[in-house]
């Protein structure tokens, strides 16, 4: 309760400062001024989601975006799939770039508003996933080493999907020759461990439907 009260107060002070700095008060009718303050204050204080987000995200710089009830893997998946496709086409430099972006997205995910189940999964998985992403990012030019870490990373990502859900249909693939799994956005097999030399090794083991 006090947290909500405090954030309302902060909101009002910010608003007053805003009007004071940016508008010519002499021209402004005091009536409009009052209505504007009351209306936006009510809006800010009666939206529990928003005030909740404010108490969780303590960084004052963070823009008060609409905090979703459940965080999504959006950016993490984009960069993981980019990485996967780069490895499948033997492009080690692009894999390194994608993995650096994945690393950032993974770190960002931890700053979002997470449900308690998501939080638990994140704290179990993130250290390992970040470490794997870092190694792949640092080893542009050494695709063998990148692929070694891609194995663990893929398992981490799969477990994250299980906890966070997915907004698109995904496939979990397995290749017995590489003894490794990966997650794909397409049904066709394009092997990220063996690359172009053995592109079709593997099969879909599981379809992960969106939810």
């Amino acid at each position, binding site marked *: 309760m006090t947290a909500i009260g405090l954030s309302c107060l902060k909101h009002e002070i910010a608003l007053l400062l805003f009007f004071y700095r940016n508008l010519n008060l002499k021209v402004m009718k005091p009536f409009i001024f009052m209505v504007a303050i009351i209306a936006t204050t009510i809006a800010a204080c009666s939206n529990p989601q928003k005030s909740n987000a404010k108490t969780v995200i303590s960084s004052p710089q963070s823009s008060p975006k609409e905090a979703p009830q459940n965080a999504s893997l959006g950016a993490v998946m984009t960069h993981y799939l980019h990485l996967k496709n780069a490895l499948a086409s033997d492009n080690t430099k692009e894999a390194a770039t994608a993995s650096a972006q994945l690393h950032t997205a993974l770190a960002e995910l931890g700053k979002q508003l997470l449900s308690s189940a998501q939080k638990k999964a994140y704290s179990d998985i993130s250290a390992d996933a970040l470490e794997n992403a870092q190694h792949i990012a640092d080893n542009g030019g050494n695709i*063998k*080493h990148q692929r070694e870490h891609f194995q663990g990373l893929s398992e981490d990502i799969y477990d994250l999907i299980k906890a966070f859900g997915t907004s698109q249909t995904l496939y979990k693939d397995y290749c017995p020759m590489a003894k490794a799994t990966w997650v794909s956005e397409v049904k066709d097999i394009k092997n990220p461990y063996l690359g172009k030399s053995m592109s079709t090794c593997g099969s879909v083991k599981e379809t992960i439907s969106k939810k």
Partner: protein
Amino acid sequence: MTRLKTMILGGLVGAFVMIQFIQPDRNDSGQVSKQSLTALYHVPDNVTQILQQSCANCHSNNTAYPWYTHVQPVGWWMARHIRKGKAELNLDEFAGYSDRRRVSKLRSMKNQVMDGVMPLTSYTLIHRDARLSKEQKQQLVSWLDNTIDSLNQ
């Protein structure tokens, strides 16, 4: 001309003597860790031996310093390897890793040994007894394989 040469040589010797006084911190806890890999899993003697002689100097809290590491800049070079090596893998703090990371580290160990990346070549060039024979590699890898499998169940 000879005077100049003597001065340069003297300068170099002087610099060499000077840097001997800059000793890096020693990685030597002097304790047997209860958190170590060998305390966590059943590790057969031959594998313990391999880890001890080929990996522990850079991947544990107790480095057995050969005499030449007391000579700078070799000691600095060693200290840097230890710092980076321990950040990646610390055999004395293995029990502190989560289940997920234990599997991850064991897999990395296997990959590094099979790829011939570890122990570092720059190190085995001087530190000859850290080199792994084919049999030793095989023993280490098969133990790692078994342990990874048992953890994945």
